[in-house]
């Protein structure tokens, strides 16, 4: 039996679970305790089959579904197997967490939720397996619709409905781009299989058109500038397991699509595509991280952080395209390895953090950072695992985020042999931008973790916060372990990623990396650059342990607990702690031009002083509102035709008929 068949069985299993959810529409216990864990088992099986697929040879299948004469073509190759691995591994953690999370129905009945959730998973898996444009678009739309219903699970809240519609709108703008892109790629042959698209060689102009359409189409799904506005609305609106799935996995399907089109389906690449992707990516990353630093809602903060990470992925892919366009296979492979590593790393840490906010939300009923605090003592599991996610997300060694950052910076540093001096100048500037983004991500994550879990509880009700349930913890542990292992064993992971880069650019770095030993990660030679996470962790831990023991041996280990020093002002309360708002204030001041900010400051004589600040996105006012106004203007013009009286409609019909007759006659 082929690996692909097993994968299809897993997908069919997910669909069956979804249908079973319909059968047990309001039976929360059954859905949570049986269906979601079963989905998790299928997910881990999928991850296993994906690894087998990654190591095996490409396989194809034709499913007699869909329209007559238009069956679904499926193909499992390195690229799709890698993304299936991401889907399976992350869905395992999220499904286990969800089994403990959906305790009572949140708007949508749990059974329906189960259907939408598993349909979402199945459609994502099929998107990466699709081998013709028809199957791809059907699955892509299924993915968008199932996630739309998941986002609007709590549809009684108007803000959530609005977020859902915005998401649906931009998803369809993107889908249009993708559809047109496939239209260009098939080059008038009328054959929409990917095999045919690979065989076509487009003129540079049409190839660029297809590439731009793909960038817009997949960019809308991924949340690149200026199509990012739905992301910070829709991701926080969804229940946390869904937010996690969307941020960690669904955004990656867009990355998959971009890689599939720009490396696999389009043949020769042009250098400026790479520059475009890098420029857009860097702008997105910077925009995302600056907005993320000033957020006061924990889920919005994470959503903006996802925008930042998608930007970084685009930069990595752009660099890969640039090198590939100049035939530098090895360097292109290095940049793509960095990007793919980040795909994996981001999937783990972002799902971990989103799920952690879910636990916090359930425990406290609060998602505003201004009202949280001190939860580490109440929810130690969630807090420590979030710490792992936060460190990985900040790109700190020895966690997963650092490996991809390190690889990306290395690939920038290797860039001195480009034939164009303009590009040689551009690359260091981009590297500086990446470094700035990475450092700002650290700022944001310290804020996120510090304000939620450290300090003193800012509200009295936080004292009753209950710890996460065992299943929630299990899901978080799996994702946290992923962050740690990806950070510690880069050489082994790169061995897997190598299959993908070989497929995409015909080169890989795994051989060099393996030749330098399993302990040290070194993309060319040890003299040139190397990083040994295990040694790193070992030395730091050894130093920590040795210091702790020696201090106790040579001196003492006495400790006294006392109230925190109040600076001589005994009337302090927990509300006087610095807030998330305050923590973001320096960023707001430094990056002021990024924001459209309104502030109400209290005057010194106010009896009830209040302070309010709203931060909006410039793009709303520059792009979206003008378009919306134009649309409603056109709609009003069209509305004038519709008078609502039957006589007038008859007149329209009559006039149309006359005109047609005239046309036919002449």
């Amino acid at each position, binding site marked *: 039996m082929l690996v692909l068949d097993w994968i299809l069985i897993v997908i069919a299993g997910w669909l069956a679970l979804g249908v079973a959810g319909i059968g047990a529409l309001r039976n929360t216990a059954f859905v949570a305790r049986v269906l979601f864990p079963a989905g998790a088992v299928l997910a881990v099986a999928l991850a296993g089959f994906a690894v087998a697929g990654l190591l095996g040879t490409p396989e194809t299948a034709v499913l007699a579904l869909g329209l007559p004469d238009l069956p679904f073509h499926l193909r499992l190759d390195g690229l799709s197997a890698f993304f299936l691995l991401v889907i399976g591994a992350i869905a395992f953690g999220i499904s286990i967490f969800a089994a403990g999370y959906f305790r009572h129905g949140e708007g949508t009945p749990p059974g329906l939720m189960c259907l939408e959730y598993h349909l979402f998973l199945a459609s994502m898996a099929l998107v990466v397996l699709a081998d013709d444009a028809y199957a791809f678009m059907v699955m892509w739309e299924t993915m968008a619709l199932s996630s739309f219903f998941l986002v609007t699970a709590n549809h009684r809240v108007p803000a959530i409905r609005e977020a859902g519609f915005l998401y649906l709108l931009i998803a369809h703008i993107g889908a249009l781009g993708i559809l047109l892109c496939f239209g260009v790629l098939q080059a008038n042959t009328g054959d929409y299989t990917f095999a045919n698209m690979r065989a076509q060689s487009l003129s540079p102009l049409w190839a660029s058109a297809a590439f731009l359409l793909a960038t817009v189409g997949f960019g809308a799904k991924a949340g690149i500038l200026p199509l990012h506005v739905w992301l910070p609305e829709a991701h926080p609106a969804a229940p946390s397991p869904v937010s996690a799935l969307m941020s960690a996995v669904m955004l990656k399907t867009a990355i998959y699509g971009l890689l599939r089109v720009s490396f696999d389906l389009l043949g020769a690449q042009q250098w400026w595509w790479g520059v475009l992707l890098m420029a857009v990516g860097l702008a997105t990353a910077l925009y995302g991280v600056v907005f993320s630093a000033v957020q006061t809602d924990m889920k919005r903060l994470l959503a903006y952080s996802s925008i930042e990470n998608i930007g970084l992925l685009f930069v990595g892919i752009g660099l890969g395209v640039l090198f590939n366009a100049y035939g530098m296979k090895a360097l292109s492979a290095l940049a793509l390895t960095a990007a793919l590593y980040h795909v994996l790393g981001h999937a783990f840490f972002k799902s971990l953090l989103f799920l952690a906010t879910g636990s916090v939300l359930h425990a406290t009923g609060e998602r505003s950072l201004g009202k949280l605090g001190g939860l580490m003592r109440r929810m130690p599991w969630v807090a420590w695992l979030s710490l792992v996610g936060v460190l990985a997300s900040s790109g700190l060694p020895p966690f997963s985020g650092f490996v991809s950052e390190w690889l990306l910076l*290395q690939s920038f540093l290797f860039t001195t042999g480009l034939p164009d001096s303009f590009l040689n*100048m551009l690359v260091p500037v981009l590297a500086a931008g990446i470094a700035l983004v990475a*450092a700002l991500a650290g700022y944001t994550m310290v804020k996120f973790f510090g304000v939620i879990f*450290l300090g003193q509880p800012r509200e009295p009700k936080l004292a009753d916060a209950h710890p996460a349930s065992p299943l929630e913890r299990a899901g978080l542990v799996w994702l946290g372990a992923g962050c740690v292992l990806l950070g510690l064993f880069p050489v082994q992971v790169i061995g897997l990623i190598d299959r993908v880069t070989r497929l995409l650019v015909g080169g890989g770095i795994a051989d060099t990396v393996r030749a330098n030993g399993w302990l040290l990660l070194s993309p060319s030679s040890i003299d040139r650059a190397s990083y*040994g996470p295990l040694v790193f962790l070992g030395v730091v831990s050894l130093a920590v342990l040795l210091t702790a023991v020696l*201090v106790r041996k040579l001196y003492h280990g006495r400790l006294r607990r006392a109230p925190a020093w109040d600076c001589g002002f005994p009337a302090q309360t927990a509300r006087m702690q610095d807030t998330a708002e305050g923590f973001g204030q320096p960023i707001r001041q430094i990056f002021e031009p990024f924001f459209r900010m309104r502030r109400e400051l209290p005057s010194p004589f106010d009896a009830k002083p209040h302070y309010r600040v709203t931060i909006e996105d410039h793009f709303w006012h520059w792009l979206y509102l003008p378009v919306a106004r134009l649309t409603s203007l056109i709609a009003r013009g069209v509305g004038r035709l519709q008078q609502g009286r039957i006589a007038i409609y008859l007149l329209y019909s009559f006039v149309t008929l006359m005109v047609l007759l005239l046309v036919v006659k002449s």
Partner: protein
Amino acid sequence: MSIVGLFAQLLAIALALALAPLLTGWVNQWRAWLQGRRAPGLLQPYRVLHKLFNKESVVAEHATPIFRVAPYIMFGCMALACGIAPTLSTDLPLAPAADAIALVGLFALARVFISLAAMDIGTSFGTLGARREMLIGFLAEPALLMVLFSASLITQSTSLAMIVETLAHQPFAIYPSLAVAGVAFTMVSLAENARVPVDNPATHLELTMIHEALILEYSGRHLALVEWAASLKLFAYSCIGLALFVPWGVAEAGTPIAILFAIPMLVVKLAVGGVLLALIETINAKMRLFRVPEFLATAFLLAVIALLVHVLLGA
């Protein structure tokens, strides 16, 4: 991994641990002299450490383990940073484990933990300090990275040991990019080590302090470790600066004799560097906090310019 290499590695770490407080004492002494004050003894930092280690630690009632672990992690990070900085020899077994980028990550890791520890107690000062520390960090970190990149582009390596070896081997030449990078590095070091004009290590005035606000809640052995780690950080920064911009005198051959000869060389270079640091601190005034981002942005831009100069001139 040779025996000599292992020896050099252990010696480098031991020397850093032993000499770091001395360097702090030396800088303090010179600062006092330059400012016309009577200086504390050169060994004062050791006495302070000894005193603090003997005292009991007072920890806030609701402090989490992060508060107690952070000083150790900071100390461990700085010890590793001193271990990979090629101070005595370039044949260091630990050097391949962490290159220049990982070194920046190492400093960032220490910074994140100490900032989280400051937020842990939940007093206004701690969070204020954490916020300011992270503010400095997010600008200083990329600037430092860019400085190190300028050196790596010249030497085609991000390994600190290789950078020093290559730079020391080349005939004496002034690289314009390294000159610009040197200025940026000095600015970053001042900010990262909480020195005037960014922060004043001697202040306890709440509105101006950064580092002191961060560690306000620490006492006893925890404070001792934090202070020692801060000395180690200054030591590591000085060593990295010396290694990049004055690389001569580091033992490349890796023989025991050469390493022993490298020690007095290092001490002399550090002594001169310490005096220069005291001089900078004396002739500058402390800036307002919101001038600091401008200061660091200048450093960042200078570092980027250094990179561009390298690309343009090829040197």
